[in-house]
C-alpha cells in the first residue's frame, strides 16, 4: 500500500468513526425529548393553576429548525396566551455552544434563553475559564445534573434556575420590556 493509499484509508476510517460518535437523528430525538420535558414543566408545574382556571392558554405549533450538522427538522414551538399577549417558546437548536438544548422565550423583540446546563452552574464563570498556557487550569465546579436555566442574552449571564417563580418573573419582565418599545 502506498503512503497515499494508507492516508486515504486512515481518513475514511476516521470519518466513519466520527459518524458513529455523532448520530444526527439520535441528537434530534434527544433534543425533542428535552423540549417536551420543558413544555411539560410549563404545563404541569409553572402555569398549572393559570391553565386550570383558564386565565392562560397554551398550545403548540410545528416549526422547522435548520442546523448545519443536522439539516432541517420539525419540532414543536409552544405559544402562551396571556390576555392580548402571545409569547412563544421557540426551540433554537441542539448544536449550541455550551449546551445541548436552547429554547428562546420570545415576545415582540424581547427574548430570554432557556438552556440546559448543570444544576451547579450559576453563571458563565462556572463554565469558562481562561488561563495562561503552561499553568494548570483552575478547578471547575462539578456541573451536576442537567436542568433548565434562564439566561438574559443582554444581561450579565447569571443564570436563573427555571422554576415556577422565576418563570412567572421572566414572563412579566418580557411583557413589560416589550411594552417600552
Amino acid at each position, binding site marked *: 500500500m502506498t503512503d497515499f493509499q494508507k492516508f486515504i484509508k486512515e481518513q475514511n476510517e476516521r470519518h466513519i468513526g466520527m459518524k458513529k460518535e455523532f448520530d444526527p437523528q439520535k441528537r434530534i430525538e434527544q433534543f425533542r425529548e428535552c423540549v417536551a420535558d420543558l413544555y411539560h414543566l410549563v404545563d404541569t408545574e409553572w402555569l398549572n393553576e393559570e391553565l386550570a382556571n383558564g386565565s392562560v392558554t397554551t398550545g403548540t405549533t410545528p416549526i422547522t429548525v*435548520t*442546523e*448545519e*450538522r443536522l439539516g432541517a427538522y420539525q419540532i414543536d414551538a409552544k405559544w402562551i396566551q396571556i390576555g392580548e399577549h402571545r409569547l412563544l417558546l421557540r426551540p*433554537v*437548536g441542539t*448544536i*449550541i*455552544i*455550551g*449546551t445541548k438544548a*436552547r429554547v428562546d422565550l420570545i415576545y415582540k423583540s424581547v427574548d430570554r*434563553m432557556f*438552556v440546559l446546563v448543570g444544576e451547579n452552574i450559576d453563571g*458563565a464563570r462556572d*463554565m*469558562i475559564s*481562561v488561563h495562561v498556557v503552561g499553568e494548570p487550569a483552575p478547578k471547575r465546579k462539578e456541573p451536576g445534573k442537567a436542568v433548565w436555566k434562564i*439566561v438574559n*442574552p443582554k444581561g450579565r*449571564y447569571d443564570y436563573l434556575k427555571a422554576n415556577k417563580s422565576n418563570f412567572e418573573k421572566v414572563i412579566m419582565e418580557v411583557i413589560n420590556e416589550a411594552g417600552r418599545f
Partner: protein
Amino acid sequence: MKLVDFNPDKPNPVDIDHWYRMSKDCIDNYFDKSNPTYEERFLFKSEEEVNRQHKDELDELSLKASFFVMTYIESLFRTDFVLRLESGSGKWKDQLTRHFKHDVYVPTKKMYQYSLVNDIIGGWKTYSFPTKEMMDILNTLPQYFDFRNWIAHGRYWIFKEDNYQRKYNYEQMVIMLGKIERGFNSKLKTKNFGVAP
C-alpha cells in the same frame, strides 16, 4: 491661482487595501473556533448565529472599505478639476479645461460646492470626447456616488437598491477603480508632490 492646499498624505488604494486585509484578518480571528476566547464570546449561540454574525461583520467591513475607495475615486476627479482651474492660460488648452474655467468656475464658490455629478462628471461627458469605455464609466458613476452619499450621510434613509451589498462591495469598487485607471489612462490630471512611489 491656488485654490486648494493639496494633502500629500491622502490615502491611496494600497493603503486602503492594506487596512481592509488587516481588518478582515482580525474579524476572521475573532470568529475562529480555535481562538481561546471563542466559547466565552459565543456562549449559547448556535453555529448559524455565529456564522451569520461573522458574515454581517465582513459585509459591514466591505461597505466601509468600499466607501473609502469611492472617496478616492471622487478625489481623482476633484483633483483633476482643481488642477485644470489652477492651470495658467498656456498650460492646457483642451475643451474640457476651457469649459471648467469659463463655464463652470465661479470665483465666489468654494471647491466643495461644485457638484461632482453635474459640474464635473457632466463636463467630462460633454467636453472630453470620451471613448465608449469612458462614457460607460461616466454614466455608471452617479449610482456609485449615490451610494457614497448614503454612507456619508449616516444611512438615515432606506437605500433604494435591494442588492447594494453585492453591487457596491469592496471587490466591486476595486474593479470600478481599475476600469477608471484603464479607461481614463493619463487623461485625469494628478498632483505630483515630488515624492518617489
